[in-house]
């Protein structure tokens, strides 16, 4: 019986969404693999969180240790390796959050487990799981097998497993003594650093003209500014534009940038990686201009032009000015 363990994630004494999504995926895997479902909570103070999890999970294993007030991959790796070392066959499920990305690879080595990261779906055939994930700039889907491994770690694509409450009887909460009580972590959290705020707030803009790497290495930013002006909108961008210092970070749309909820989103030279699209909320009209007809952005856009920005953008500005009269 393959046991399913779900690793809870929390920040500031609150469970994060990724926890519930992992529980959703874990439930399905437990049903398909016929194993028991357990949740693991590493925290300094389980109050509230353990009970919240127990409402949705038959058994919650809790380790309380001051080291786990904030996420610490070094201590978490050692604690989980100790807890799970004799539990094979198992599958450990966690979000692919930026924190868990610190943990999963090292933990897989410590457990001698097979690891698939950023999975968006699973399939179980003849009692063997396979994972679906993306490759090649997120343009290709791949099915990955674990070569019959008895210990498997998977991390989940954010948003791929929307949670629905299971109801049922509350599960048991079992406390485990901290396996790392006497260990000094080699990694220490100091403080949070908030995002820098700027002169525009793209989060509240209705009309957004968003620029991606397709604008080239030395773009003439003025043509985009004047297009945005003509549309009465603001400029936003994908991550590479910020990396190149073409626009400040507070213009970046995406999971590591700002969440926007405009009425209209014009994507220029943006491929449409999920970390970018994940920052576009609500149900805006998405329009994309891209020279690659297979760019993923065209899957989420309602309208598109397959063409070169250098030609389309000036023409578009002119036509918009014409229409405005």
């Amino acid at each position, binding site marked *: 019986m393959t046991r399913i363990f779900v690793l809870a994630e929390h920040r500031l004494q609150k469970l994060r969404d990724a926890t519930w999504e992992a529980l959703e995926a874990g439930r399905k895997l437990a049903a398909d693999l016929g194993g028991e479902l357990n949740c693991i909570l590493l925290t300094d103070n389980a109050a509230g969180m353990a009970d919240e999890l127990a409402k949705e999970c038959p058994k919650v294993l809790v380790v309380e240790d001051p080291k786990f007030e904030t996420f610490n*991959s070094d201590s978490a790796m050692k604690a989980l390796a100790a807890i799970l070392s004799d539990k094979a066959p198992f599958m450990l499920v966690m979000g692919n959050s*930026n924190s868990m*990305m*610190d943990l*999963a*690879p*090292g933990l*897989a*080595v*410590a457990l001698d487990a*097979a*690891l698939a*990261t950023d999975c968006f779906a699973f399939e179980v055939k003849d009692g063997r799981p396979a994972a679906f994930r*993306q*490759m*090649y*700039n997120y*343009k*290709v*889907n*791949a099915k*990955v*097998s*674990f*070569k019959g*491994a008895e210990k498997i770690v998977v991390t989940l694509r954010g948003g791929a497993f929307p949670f629905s409450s299971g109801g049922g009887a509350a599960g048991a909460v079992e406390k485990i003594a901290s396996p790392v009580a006497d260990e000094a972590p*080699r990694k220490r*959290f*100091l403080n*949070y*650093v*908030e*995002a820098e705020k700027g002169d525009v707030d793209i989060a509240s803009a*209705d*009309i957004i003209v968003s620029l991606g790497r397709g604008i080239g290495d030395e773009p003439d930013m003025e043509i985009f500014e004047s297009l945005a002006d003509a*549309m*009465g909108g603001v400029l936003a961008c994908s*991550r590479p534009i910020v*990396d190149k*210092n073409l626009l400040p970070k507070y213009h*970046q749309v995406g999971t*590591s*940038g700002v969440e926007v909820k405009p*009425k209209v989103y014009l994507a220029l030279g943006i491929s449409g990686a999920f970390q970018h699209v994940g920052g576009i909320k609500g149900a805006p*009209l998405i329009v994309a201009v891209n020279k*690659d*007809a*297979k760019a993923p952005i*065209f*899957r989420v856009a309602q*309208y*598109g*032009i397959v*063409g070169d920005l250098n030609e*389309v953008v000036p*023409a*578009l500005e002119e036509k*918009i000015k*014409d*229409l405005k009269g």
Partner: protein
Amino acid sequence: MDIIVCVKWVPDTSEADLAIAGGAKDIKKDDLDHDINDWDRFAVEEAVQIKEKVGGKVTVVSVAPEDAEEMLRESLARGADEAFHLWDDAFEGSDGYAVATILAKFIKDRPFDLILTGTLADDDCSGQVGGMLAAMLGVPNAVLVSSIEFLDRKVKFKKELEGGLYEAVEMDLPAQLSVATGLNEPRFVSIRAVRKVASAEIPVIDCGELGLDESQVGPQGSKIQVEEVAMPPEGEGAEIIGGGAEEAAGRLAEILKEKGGIG
């Protein structure tokens, strides 16, 4: 500060029209340009900048086929002191775990304070090698590192969390950090710099020389296996506005006006 930077040679797929290869185990790569993985370019630059500030040595290493020599040479031109090319036909088809195994074997007997890599590679999008390598070598690690500073035998860095939030973290050395794109501005490599390293020796080291058994590398040494690749289902998709740029732009302007995209 002795820094080892691990870099990857990847096909440039961001703008290419991708096709699935026969057998559907991978995409067709023969016609694709290859280059250093974007994230790793920032890792090389960061290592060189640290060396310029505090002194030390920068070693660049890659598990990559012959063509990748170009990438290693360019890293030397960027300011790395030495480069090593780990390759053997047996390495073909290695997953992140097998690559980390190869790198760990190479690094094990070398002194280092810091290992830098990119957070993930644009080809497999896995983000496994840095953390696995750290665990194999018994040092702490972090990914998505967006600034680095050194205190006495410790490193202090900023790590990117979601939604624009960061955390400041302190870690003991030696350590492994996987960097985020944008933590520096990779320098422009001058022709002079390229010429200077044109004849620098870049040792190629194979499986046997590393002291690895063929069962530890390639598909055999891998923990996961790609069974099948496919282009994602088309779904609804966008209505593509045809015609030349002029005509399409005109139609798009009308659509924008109609849907409130002109304020």
